[in-house]
């Protein structure tokens, strides 16, 4: 639990609203939710289950318990992510918005100067250009044709090196001589990793090579839409420090630091859009946070 001031960009203070709203982002690997109420930001994360609604129920129950708020007090919910389609919250108004718009709005509230987002999730990666005046999407491009450049690729590669996902990034950071992993295909990369292991290449160097190969894929996306400062890194893979370092090195551009774990950027954007939708649809008078 944090206050708005501890999370949001101070430059947007005049836009902060008090209404209790929920943003739920059901990704392919994890479900995230952000509850905004009375100037407070609550977050929750759980692994994505088989059924989106069950994942969403677990998320909001965690948040309600932490905040002491009852479901009827929540005025509006926005669902996003791949599991967004199947959501239902009874009487509470629900809107479905794509994760692309939500990540843009979430990133905007975390840093109002953000113009470019790299979002790497479990099953796709995206590059998004954001309008810094309003947090709306200017342009985006998605890679979903193959697993390269996605979280699942990194997960698979970590497994091949006998590492957990959490250990994979830190392991890459130990390397000062990243291995040359040329393949950008999961299937071929697997044989390349096995071959590098057989040659006795250090595990940290292979891990760093894989991170760089993934970063190259993402760089291709950015080449299409252009990189303009500030740059922010969102999605599940944003927790991976090895990936962050690889991106910064390859792009020769720093990734902006913000005050909330950017894995929540989509859910936060969903919550902000819920507040905006509530005001638009009900004509509710704004209660700005003092």
């Amino acid at each position, binding site marked *: 639990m944090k206050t708005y001031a501890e999370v949001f960009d101070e430059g947007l203070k005049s836009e902060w609203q008090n209404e209790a709203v929920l943003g739920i982002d059901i990704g392919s690997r994890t479900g995230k939710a952000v509850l905004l109420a009375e100037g407070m930001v609550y977050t929750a994360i759980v692994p994505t289950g088989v059924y989106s609604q069950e994942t969403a129920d677990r998320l909001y129950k965690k948040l309600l318990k932490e905040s002491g708020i009852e479901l009827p007090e929540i005025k509006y919910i926005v669902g996003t992510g*791949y599991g967004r*389609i199947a959501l239902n919250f009874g009487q509470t108004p629900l809107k479905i*918005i*794509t*994760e*692309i*718009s939500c990540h843009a709005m979430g990133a905007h509230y975390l840093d109002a100067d953000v113009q470019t987002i790299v979002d790497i999730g479990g099953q*796709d990666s995206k590059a998004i250009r954001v309008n810094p005046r309003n947090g*709306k*999407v*200017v*342009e*985006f491009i*998605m890679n*979903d044709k193959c697993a390269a450049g996605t979280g699942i690729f990194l997960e698979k590669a970590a497994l091949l090196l006998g590492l957990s996902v959490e250990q994979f990034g830190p392991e890459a950071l130990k390397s000062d001589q990243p291995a040359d992993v040329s393949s950008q295909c999961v299937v071929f990369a697997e044989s390349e990793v096995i071959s590098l292991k057989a040659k006795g290449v250090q595990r940290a160097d292979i891990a760093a090579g894989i991170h760089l190969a993934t970063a190259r894929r993402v760089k291709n996306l950015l080449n299409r839409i252009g990189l303009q400062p500030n740059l922010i890194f969102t999605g599940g893979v944003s927790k991976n420090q090895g990936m962050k370092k690889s991106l910064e090195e390859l792009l020769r551009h720093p990734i902006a630091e913000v005050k909330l774990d950017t894995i929540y950027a989509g859910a936060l954007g969903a919550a902000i859009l819920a507040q905006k939708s509530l005001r638009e649809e009900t004509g509710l008078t704004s209660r700005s946070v003092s």
Partner: protein
Amino acid sequence: MQFEDVKNARDYIVYSQGMHSYSKAITKMMDLYLSYVPYVERAHQEGKKAIFCSALYPTTWEAPLLYALDTIPYATGEIGRLSDFRVMQIAEDYYQFPIETCSMVKCLVGQWHIRKDDPGAVKRILGVSSGCEPFNMAWETMKMQGFDVHNPDVIYRAKGVDGERLENLIKFFIRQLYRTIEWVSGSREFDEEKLRLEIQRKNRLLEKMRKVLELRLKRPYYIRSLPTILILNSGVANYFARPEEFEATLDLLIEELENIPVDEEENKKVIPLLWVGTTAQEFGIYEAIDQAGGALLGFRSSPNKLFREDVPPLEAIAYYLYDNQRAGAEIYMRRFLDEELGRINARGMILYGIIGCSYNSVEREMHRNYFHQKGIPSINLEGAFQLGGPTGQVLTRVKAFTEMLS
């Protein structure tokens, strides 16, 4: 039918028909569309002539010629929606088409394969795409399977080709048309007056479709994106095998559109979009666009030229081939797309192509770069030709694009 019950392309049409139950014209159009393939196959079994041909766009020329020769144009694109992954497997496993090959070509090969041993099936194919290598491969393959394939050579008209050079092209194509007439009917003789009347009919239909598209600008959701593109790209191309019924239904649609009030407030919320591509078989894409507040009001295939009626009918067909917006290289299409963007006051364009079509993937990139420089946002989509719902990622892209423009 509810949206949740939608499983395939046919379901989308039934669902869409239900959504338009207030309109006799759209209900009738969807009936004509849904019954087109069975109608052609039944008519053929009852002794009428039917020939597979492209008839994929309103600007194709086969329909007037074939109808004048008492032959039903059987649009190959329409057997796509009868397909599933199994027909693709036939092309890939039995005929060894590479997996990267155009999904439309593989789908058609699979569909024709299913028909090859059926004595009652249509086995004649009029191909008109000598520039498309995968299609040429498909036709050669089908010839070996006993199909009767005729492929008139279609000459490319480069920019600046006019005067005597254009006249030579016209003469060349008229000779090709005579060969085609002979292949269809067994004789080079044909009823010129009948062809003249068919050309007049085609022109009427093109004008009426144009009228529908104009009326839709102020009434975008009376007839939504899916039925619009089906009437435009399929109906005006092949008349759903029932020319008189189709034209009467088009008249009824115009009458309905002219008599409904315009909701200016509602129209302010609509995001006008230009569709640049063939008809997506994943019909859910259209529904996703409409649900997100977009409306396909402009099309690359919007008819902008009529057949000439001041020259003999074969000449009129030849002139039309070399003079409509699809003539020549894709780069020349830009001017038309610019006009269409202006006509509908478009906020963005959707560039759509079939998976595996290498030509089209280059075209889409060209258009994207050119129009981005002019400040027109676009989205690049690829879809499979065989039947099936659109993937979640495609729907995410479409929805995000319309959200971005809203």
